[in-house]
């Protein structure tokens, strides 16, 4: 690239003789831009500015922290682990067999006590642990194209090893993610009165409308020799398979919750809820826990104190630093921009060294 400058040695490339070009004034035009003199502000970390900024951060962060802690405290959350309790005592040592055979009765009943008043809607989650929905093999094993429309039903290359049936028919929905669909079910009742579980709006509307097609129906699903999880009703299009849609939005972390449904009814304090669980899903093979979660919500989301504490910690630290800096400043101030502090102006005996 640099060579070009001299290549005019190739002879009179610029047709104008040197005399003409010499007369052209090459003086650079003045502009604030080319002289690098654009108006600019020059921030400097003065003690005043630094201390003020810390105080402001402290003053803003501590209330936010308190508010989110408050919100989090008001979220009522019930977490019940059931993977162990739902194995009949006879099968305790052979839970894998229990879950894999179709002969055993998978039903199991638990009671939950509502500690505090839970305002509607009460969200029902299942929580899995040690389940790597973010595993590379797993995440990749799906076909977003296939999910969208009937036309691309056959695009299953990315879905292996759950792409096609043994006779070559495409599996819809294909891939490990769909194959391992969670299929425990929960039924809730209070004093024999059934609590309705609403599945309305548990999946993202955007997914239902654009990601999962309304013309594509489950096909050849869970027809192989190894059943991974839930089955789907072949008469319902994918866009209505809300449980599948929720499941297919893979979790970020190995310990995750997924929305199961909503109870659109207030639950009074000290109510005892009976839950009938159909314990189908195999987490026993990899030692994963299963939990049932009932939770209300707040502006901050679910129950999580971490952020509130973090905010209070950051805010507190800033205030603390502000105070420290004030003290240090009062004890040992330095005049700003004093040329006598310049290294070559310092007294050679050197109080600054």
């Amino acid at each position: 690239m640099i060579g070009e400058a001299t290549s005019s040695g190739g002879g009179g490339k610029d047709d104008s003789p040197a005399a003409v070009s010499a007369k052209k004034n090459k003086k650079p035009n003045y502009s604030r831009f080319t002289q690098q003199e654009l108006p600019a502000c020059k921030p400097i970390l003065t003690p005043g500015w630094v201390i003020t900024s810390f105080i402001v951060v402290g003053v803003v962060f501590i209330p936010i922290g308190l508010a989110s802690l408050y919100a989090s405290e008001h979220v009522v959350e019930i977490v019940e682990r059931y993977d162990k309790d739902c194995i009949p005592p006879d099968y305790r040592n052979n839970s894998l067999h229990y879950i894999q055979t179709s002969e055993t009765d998978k039903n199991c009943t638990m009671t939950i006590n509502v500690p505090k008043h839970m305002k509607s809607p009460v969200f029902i989650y299942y929580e899995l642990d040690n389940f790597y929905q973010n595993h590379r093999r797993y995440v990749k094993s799906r076909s977003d194209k296939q999910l969208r429309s009937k036309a691309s039903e056959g695009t299953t290359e990315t879905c292996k090893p759950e792409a096609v049936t043994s006779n070559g028919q495409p599996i819809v929905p294909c891939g490990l993610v769909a194959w391992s669909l969670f299929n425990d079910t929960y039924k809730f009742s209070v004093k024999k009165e059934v609590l309705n579980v609403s599945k309305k709006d548990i999946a993202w509307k955007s997914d239902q409308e654009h990601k999962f097609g309304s013309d594509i129906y489950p096909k050849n699903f869970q027809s192989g020799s190894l059943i991974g999880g839930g089955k789907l009703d072949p008469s319902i299009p994918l866009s209505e398979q809300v449980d599948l849609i929720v499941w297919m939005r893979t979790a970020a972390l190995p310990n995750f919750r997924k929305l199961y449904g909503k109870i659109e009814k207030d639950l009074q304090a000290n109510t005892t809820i009976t839950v009938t669980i159909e314990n189908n899903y195999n987490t026993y093979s990899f030692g994963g826990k299963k939990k049932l979660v009932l939770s209300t919500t707040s502006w901050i989301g679910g129950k999580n104190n971490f952020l509130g504490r973090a905010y209070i910690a950051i805010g507190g630290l800033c205030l603390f630093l502000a105070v420290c800096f004030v003290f240090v400043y009062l004890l040992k101030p330095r005049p700003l921009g004093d040329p006598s502090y310049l290294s070559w102006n310092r007294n050679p005996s050197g109080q600054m060294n």
Partner: protein
Amino acid sequence: MDSQNPFEVRHGSRGGDIELLGLSHKEIGDDDARLVYLNDPVKSNERYEFAGNSIRTSKYSVFTFLPRNLFRQFHRVAYIYFLIIAVLNQLPQLAVFGRGASIMPLAFVLSVTAVKDAYEDWRRHRSDRVENNRLAWVLVDDEFQQKKWKDIQVGEILKIQANETFPCDIVLLSTSEPTGVAFVQTVNLDGESNLKTRYAKQETISKIPEEEMINGLIKCERPNRNIYGFQANMEVEGKRLSLGPSNILLRGCELKNTAWAIGVAVYCGRETKAMLNSSGAPSKRSHLETRMNFETIILSLFLILLCSIVSICAAVWLRDRKDELDILPFYRRKDFAHGAPQNFNYYGWGLEIFFTFLMSVIVFQIMIPISLYISMELVRVGQAYFMIRDMLLYDEESNSRFQCRSLNINEDLGQIKYVFSDKTGTLTENKMEFQRASIWGVDYSGGRTISRNDPVQAVDGKILQPKMQVKVDPQLLELSRCGKDTKGAKHVHDFLLALAACNTIVPLVVDETSDSTVKLLEYQGESPDEQALAYAAAAYGFMLTERTSGHIVINIQGERQRFNVLGLHEFDSDRKRMSVILGCPDKTVKVFVKGADTSMFSVIDRSLNMNIIHATEAHLQTYSSMGLRTLVFGIRELNNSEFEQWYLAFEAASTAIIGRAALLRKVANNVENSLIILGASAIEDKLQQGVPEAIESLRTAGIKAWVLTGDKQETAISIGYSSKLLTSKMTSIIINSNSKQSSRKSLEDALVTSKKLTITSEITHNTGASDAAAVNPVALIIDGTSLVHILDSELEELLFELASKCSVVLCCRVAPLQKAGIVALVKNRTRDMTLAIGDGANDVSMIQMADVGVGISGREGQQAVMASDFAMGQFRFLVPLLLVHGHWNYQRMGYMILYNFYRNAVFVLVLFWYVICTSFTLTTAITEWSSMLYSIIYTALPTIVVGILDKDLSRRTLLKYPQLYGAGHRQEAYNSKLFWLTIIDTLWQSVAVFSIPLFAYWASSIDGSSIGDLWTLAVVILVNLHLAMDISRWSWITHAVIWGSIIATFICVTIIDAVPIFSGYWAIFHVAKTGLFWLCLLAIVLAALIPRYVVKYLYQYYSPCDIQIAREAEKFGSPRELRNTRIDTNPILGSPHR
């Protein structure tokens, strides 16, 4: 960017060529020669395929563009790394990213460069076409016909009219001048605007090609790039003539002041010297970049460490679960689809681990900041833009801007420790002015009035007037008009005749006056000294008005006199003198010699006129101590036998083919002796404007100045004083020795002296400062003879030790190669940066040797500029160049490198922490597109703009406190401490970015894409704010680019999330609706930046560096330039916390 050997590229210096000619004792062998048959292109081209005259500067054609351009681009290691990663990613087992995403960055960079290259090449194609279709007169069938340049062949005879450009390299046969002289302008070739003379051989002058066939054979050397050398011989009519550089006309030059010239094409097209020379400046690598490579290796080790951790953990994970893997829902090793279960996408434990390693290299690839190399290049282009357009670096007088010829070493300008400067033309203007003369022992120094002698000397009814006016001494003027009757007047006459005749000046008559009766006489010559002398002679009434190869005409006091130039021994650096043998109108033959005093006094007959010689010597002493350049003149009359003897020898020598230069030198030495002294001239070489101030500034900045000059010691010292290089406070140590032993002794003595001085100064001042030399400075003055014994011997060590104790070193009487030797002496022994600045051909070697070479585009031609990395018009521009631009460039580039390391590492680390949560399988929550766009769109622009535009200090402050330049010497902007601090900061920031969302969303229903978006935005905002925190000047461009980048990131993330087939469809819209998302973002940025903010503040406030204080002074003003008592220390801050 072909990396040719930089030393090949350059034109040989003129001094070197003389040597070259002298050394080439062997005749051109038939194997090495090219045979050109005159006027017979068919035969000429029969045996060898000589290149045709069409040229191609373009590099590609339509078909070869793609492969060749790609091939060139992949010469960069960075691109190969990119490519390997992209190829790895194409393997199905390793396909971490989608195909499109993984190729995008490479494709982006390649295509941008390709478009640029294509455009440049298109322009080259166009200019080639114009060039090739120009027309020239070629002899075809005994008449000159017009032919396109591209059709000209070797061996054809061409006719060139005045002001036309030569289409190829041509051996001159005849010209419109009866003497066969042709004047050419070589400005296109070497930038020198004075006219040069070229000669046709006597034997061919009279030939008229249209009428008689010229038969002949030219045997010449192979094409080479030496534009000052040509060796050939020509056989015409059975006679063998030798041809030299003065017989060839080179492509690109123009014919001037000659109606026509006829010649034969010997080199065509790409074999012409002009084309062979059209290659670029060599690429140097900056110091900072070399250091950076070391840190890049550390980063690669770090990358390998990360990958190893991932693969080891993956290995453990796989081994722990080896029994579960078959049906593990998220692994499913077995594929049951086709009868018997078989392993799916599993290649055994060992291979899986190996693949994991490779995949992690792919995912963490940007740990090695490849984009940094591209950004650095862009930043340098930007910095060059501003340097070129800086008004401070524009030279009004020569109308020249600053030139950045090398784009790789901008930042080196901020770390220069040694400046090696030429004197003539660099410190001084090289605008010679005749000041004084000592004639026959009498000093004439009254030249105070501009001469208004009556130069009304009519030639052809016109009045000729020299272009330059010279101040004359009235007494000498009076004497010069007395003719040569009295004895005193005769010497004056001879002296002035010597001034006018003993030179190679070509007088040109130019019409530049408004008065049509007055014509200006301009003296064209290669030496400004000769010009000054010729103008001086003209002012005293000895006006050289005409020169042809055989005679000169001098208008002596209005009387035209013709002198035959019988012979001319040109100046060479061995003899250090030149002579001319004139046949005077009174039939006497005289030899006039002029030269340096040392060389002249050895050939002057000391038995005669002792008192005159002594007086002249005394005058010379005075002149030198005033800083004037002196020349001594001598004369001898040759009697007939002497003349005959000389003439035969001269004829023999000048037609010799073997060792012509050496023979000529011998002839010259024989005739240049027993001279009668005439006198001496003193020419002033004025200091350039602002030189003393510039040297003062450089010294204050801690830069050591060395002056290397060919001048005499006295001249050098006096210039040293007038330029404030030497001051009266300094102790000078002078070394003049003639042998190795005496050199050793004087060096050792000098060392003892300098040590003593340093120790005493340390005691008296009791300073802790290491640079004691600054307190009691020592100046070392050493001459070329001593250097001959010192350089390339074990004494070099001693000299270096001594020189490093001195604040100024002055080397006089040094040869061009010695200059390079001195630069190498320093460069090889310290890690400090060296800069060489000079303007002439003799500085080329030094300019190439130094880390940074600066050329002054001055009067001595363009060779120094062609060899340099930077070129400018005046020495004083060195101060703004180093102190302002150098400082800025260094600070910017140093920061930019650190920032780019940080920027990429923080992103990689965020990916790495997440990998730990995905059972080490290299899933990224951040989408692959964001990963790729990260260093292209999200964060690229701000660092480039900051690298080009940010200024830590204003120009005024930097010039006011040159000491601030020390930041570069102390490597304050980039060092290993800063690197490791940055790495620690990076670790903390990545932990903050990763862990806050991790804990906030632990066991929640967050999906991978949403948290990925959060991380993407958090990292981008964080790195941009990190940069924002370190910006010193916020102009609107900076604002636009920083906030623009953040906004662009939001837009890109939104667009990516709006594509339904991506798994993260609509995630950003969902997650951005929750308060938790925004709170996380805020907390991340604050938590990540607080430690840096605190450390930065504490460091700046309690252990401020000079730059920091100067910045504060710039902003708040320094209220107390003078020290005051401590009482009024506090009010400076109207601190808000009180």
